[in-house]
């Protein structure tokens, strides 16, 4: 506030062009600042929405792979696992989803994405939940109505956005491999042993599906967009300032300087001066008409003085 006061305190002390320039700079700077702050909020919201959208799409894609495996692949491959031969993990929806996610990661644009199915007591120890994942699973177990958790997660490699859904044992068929070792296929026991991945119960939340998507790149893009927008605003406002300045010079300053020059000339030789600007219909015309009247009055006064001095002589 005091800065604004200081700016206008010199009102009338500087040329009009300078006063107007200072005012314009102040107004435009404040406008840019306000616009950038608002755009930062808007772009941030859009970036988070984009991250959520990507995470959601990635999760849905993996769920579809799981469903396909469960409905189409498992019925064909699972019987092969019943003997003591080689265990075929292709029958397991979790394996398929994580394998597909692995292939996706091989493409550079998906390198920073990840999909994991972590469980407290998995068959494959690769899927053992770490401390963060354990916290997520415990939250799902404490509150069964909770269907999704999301947020930022700090990793040694940077900040990532995660979305997690619970893995619930909803089918009795899941318990073939996960209830007791004596129900599990021999091939599974030979591959993974009889100590992990058992003791699951129907309707129990046993793990979580977590997708992580990079947020660094999205927020960097947001910052870039914000910077570009701010630069464009500055350029646009500079252009507006220059045009305003030119228009001001042409419409006000130049005629005023001309009227001022003529007024000075009129103070010495009023008869030789002609205020053509009086034809204008704006304030400049009004001013010129006033000067014209003043010039005529001056001329009359000067004539009267001249006549009086002639009679006296």
């Amino acid at each position, binding site marked *: 506030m005091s800065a604004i006061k200081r700016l206008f305190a010199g009102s009338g002390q500087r040329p009009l062009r300078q006063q107007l320039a200072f005012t314009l700079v102040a107004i435009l700077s404040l406008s840019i600042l306000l616009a950038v702050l608002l755009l930062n909020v808007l772009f941030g919201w859009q970036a988070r929405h984009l991250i959520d959208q990507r995470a959601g799409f990635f999760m849905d894609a993996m769920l579809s792979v799981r469903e396909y495996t469960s409905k189409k692949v498992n019925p064909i491959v699972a019987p092969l696992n019943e003997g003591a031969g080689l*265990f075929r993990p292709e029958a397991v929806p979790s394996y398929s989803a994580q394998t597909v996610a692995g292939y996706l990661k091989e493409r550079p644009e998906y390198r920073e994405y990840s999909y994991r199915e972590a469980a407290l007591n998995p068959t494959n*120890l690769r899927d053992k939940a770490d*401390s963060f994942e354990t916290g997520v699973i415990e939250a799902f177990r404490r509150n069964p109505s909770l269907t999704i958790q999301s947020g930022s997660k700090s990793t*040694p490699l940077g900040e990532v956005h995660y979305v997690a859904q619970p893995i619930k044992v909803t089918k009795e068929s899941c318990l073939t491999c996960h209830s007791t070792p004596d129900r599990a296929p021999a091939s599974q026991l030979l591959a993974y042993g009889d100590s992990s991945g058992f003791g699951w119960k129907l309707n129990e939340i046993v793990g979580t599906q977590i997708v992580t998507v990079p947020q660094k790149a999205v927020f960097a893009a947001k910052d870039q967009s914000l910077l570009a927008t701010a630069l464009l605003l500055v350029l646009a406002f500079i252009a507006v300032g220059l045009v305003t300045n030119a228009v001001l010079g042409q419409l006000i300053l130049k005629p005023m300087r001309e009227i001022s020059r003529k007024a000075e000339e009129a103070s010495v030789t009023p008869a030789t001066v002609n205020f053509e600007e009086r034809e204008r219909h704006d304030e400049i015309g009004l001013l010129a008409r006033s000067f014209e009247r003043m010039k005529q009055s001056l001329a009359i006064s000067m004539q009267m003085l001249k006549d009086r001095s002639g009679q006296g002589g």
Partner: protein
Amino acid sequence: MRRALFSLVLVLTACSNPSGSDTALCGPAGRLRVGLVGAQEGRASSAAALVSDQDQFRLRELLTASSRCEVQLEPVLSPEQARLRLQQGEWDLAFLPPGLTALALEQDGGYGLVRQLGRRQNSRSQLLVRQTSPYRDRADLRGARLGLLPRGSLTGFYLPLFNLHGLTFSQVRYALSYAELMRQLRAGEVDVIAWDGALPLGPADVRVLHEDGHGIPLGALALRQPLLQADYKSFLAQLDQNVSQLPASLGYATGAIPDLQNLQELRAIVSNVESWSLPRAGEAYAVYGRKQAEAEGGES
């Protein structure tokens, strides 16, 4: 608190390492796929025995900090599963026992050994039978039921089969650990089992029918070929500096490069046996395949 301190130590170590490189050591998908089988064969019968939860988390954190990659750590009990992972190039880095180490070296575009794992234990591949059994010689085993560790084990699979060449068995059974094989032998479910001579036999109700003469080399930390072309020295330096954070059961030897000479003969045997048609669980099996001359030279 301990985890925070550990992370701090890792960060400080990384910062204070003047030779440290900022290059990440990642696999093809931008992550490091790590297999953990351990340095010994057939010892762990459960996941918890292979690696505790705490050890697993600490190892994952150390590998992440050292490689600067997302780490996918897969502890595997079955050498058969590990063999498949190696064959399909699904691991970029692997903590392997001797049999799988030999196998890793045989893979196309294979693996290089960068550190030694395990401790000397005078391991020997043996064949055990019950004390009361009539078997006195390997030739007597015709028609017997054989118990093995899964394919991928040196003392529990490759060497026993190599030493039983020419015999036919009525059934071959597999178990994940020597303890389970011993249980099956004592319970009469099999007649002869593969055994590691470094393990105590326990009660005198079993005896050694045959002992292979090959010394069993130590396990190794193997790195996949594309990563060997990269700058992996700083990664190894990080592991060497934080050896106390690695599971003690791995027996990670700081700065020790595995002796490939010791593995040469066993590599030939593994490669030889792998070329045979191999036994399937629960089925009869004739141990038959062409024995290569170099491998035969090492047969005891």
